[in-house]
């Protein structure tokens, strides 16, 4: 085994190119490469020592359809065979998913990790991890994939279905927990010329091709489902999903998400916010703090003057030189004025309004964590 003790200057220079290359793959839109997927998913089952399902690979055109269909199909198969079969089958199904994962990516990851060399693994690996792997993961999975998986996860749990585990495909090229990360392994194999056992290298190539060819996919003893790529991924300058014109991410069947600066909205709300059709009263009545913040950002601020009895009760500068205020105003059907602590987050620069029952900034802030201002000192804030 040839160990990698140190990266050469050329290899170090390749890290940013590798990062950009894999971000491009992770955010790819348009038609999926189903032909490559079909070929490699069979090889993955073979590596796992499992029979490939007799049915052809089922193609879906959005992750919501795939997640619901795979969960429903799994449910029907289990329920149709009685409880004892259900338990066994469930174990087999889970085992299939795990076995495929273990066969094609976990084995690759541990092999690559150990091949890098134990005494320098933290130096080399963490350098590549932060410059390539984490950077790709942040841009692709955290900023884009997580919005989709969160929305799909909510839909599946609302339908009271048992979750069917999936692979993130292109959204997992930068890794996901213990799943192998093609951008990292390919860097060591292709750029650093890491020599691996033939079998491990084959597994790495299989997982690499699976991830870069499609969006999500679901593996099962009875079926394999695979999802097409999104037709659009729109992002703002910070890399967050964002569009004021249409769905920020949309799949070929029309399913997608309306998103403003990384925050997902129902279409009706998104439409009202981007067209500034919400009154300040409506905005301040929004329960979700992030939704409230985004709606306020899009609101014409001169509307604040329309609030009945609008007052600034206290105004100070916080420890990070950001303005902090307590405002109050009256709304219909509530006798007492509503009060909000208006703060700017020192790490994101975002402006928030947090409901309070106190008149001063310091007391409002401390009380929002259950203390009086005399009890605690904000030592550091992020």
């Amino acid at each position, binding site marked *: 085994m040839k160990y990698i003790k140190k990266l050469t200057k050329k290899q170090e220079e390749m890290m940013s190119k590798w990062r950009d290359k894999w971000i491009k793959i992770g955010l790819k839109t348009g038609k999926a490469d189903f032909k490559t997927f079909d070929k490699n998913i069979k090889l993955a089952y073979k590596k796992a020592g499992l029979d490939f399902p007799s049915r052809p690979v089922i193609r879906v055109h959005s992750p919501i359809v795939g997640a619901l269909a795979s969960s429903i199909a799994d449910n029907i198969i289990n329920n149709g065979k009685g409880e004892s079969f259900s338990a066994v089958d469930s174990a087999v199904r889970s085992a299939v998913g795990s076995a495929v994962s273990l066969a094609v990516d976990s084995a690759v990851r541990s092999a690559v990790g150990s091949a890098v060399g134990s005494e320098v693994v933290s130096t080399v690996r963490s350098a590549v991890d932060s410059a390539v792997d984490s950077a790709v993961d942040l841009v692709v999975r955290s900023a884009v994939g997580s919005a989709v998986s969160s929305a799909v996860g909510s839909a599946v749990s609302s339908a009271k279905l048992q979750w069917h585990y999936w692979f993130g495909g292109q959204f997992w090229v930068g890794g996901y927990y213990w799943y192998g990360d093609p951008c990292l392994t390919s860097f060591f194999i292709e750029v650093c010329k890491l020599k691996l056992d033939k079998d491990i290298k084959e597994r790495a190539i299989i997982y690499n091709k699976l991830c870069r060819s499609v969006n999500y996919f679901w593996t099962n003893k009875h079926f394999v489902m695979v999802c097409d790529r999104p037709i659009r991924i729109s992002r703002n300058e910070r890399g967050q999903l964002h569009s004021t014109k249409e769905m920020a991410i949309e799949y070929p069947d029309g399913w997608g998400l309306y998103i403003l600066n990384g925050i997902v909205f129902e279409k009706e709300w998104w439409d009202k916010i981007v067209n500034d059709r919400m009154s300040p009263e409506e905005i301040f009545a929004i329960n*979700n*703090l992030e939704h409230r913040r985004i709606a306020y950002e899009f609101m014409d601020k001169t509307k604040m003057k329309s609030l009945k009895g609008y007052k600034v009760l206290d105004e100070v500068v916080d420890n990070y030189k950001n303005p902090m205020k307590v405002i109050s105003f009256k709304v219909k059907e509530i006798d007492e004025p509503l009060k909000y602590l208006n703060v700017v987050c*020192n790490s994101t620069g975002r402006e928030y309004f*947090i409901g309070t029952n106190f008149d001063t900034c310091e007391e409002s802030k401390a009380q*929002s964590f*259950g203390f009086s201002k005399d*009890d605690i*000192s904000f030592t550091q804030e*992020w």
Partner: protein
Amino acid sequence: MKKQFYRHGDLGLLKIDKLPKELRLTKTKIAMVGSHGNNHSIDTGKLYFKKENDFVFGYLVAKNTNLLHPEHKDKTGKAKIPDGIYQLIKQNEYTPQGLIPVVD
């Protein structure tokens, strides 16, 4: 004397002297789940969950611990907290219907 308090977005950490008894250590590194996939996590350290009231939901034993959150590090870098024991506190806001956890 005021107690040392650290704030990581809507997560508060109050420095305390010792852990309460009968806590169960958890395996997760996610201290507090946020919506939109934005969790407050730690890289190292030990987490214990125990809901004490509307605010306190657990404890952290920090040792070389960085607080992680996808949205709270652009300007400040990693949020490293001093080694020690902390009470984990969720921020709440006042509404006409009463106190509710900040939902983000």
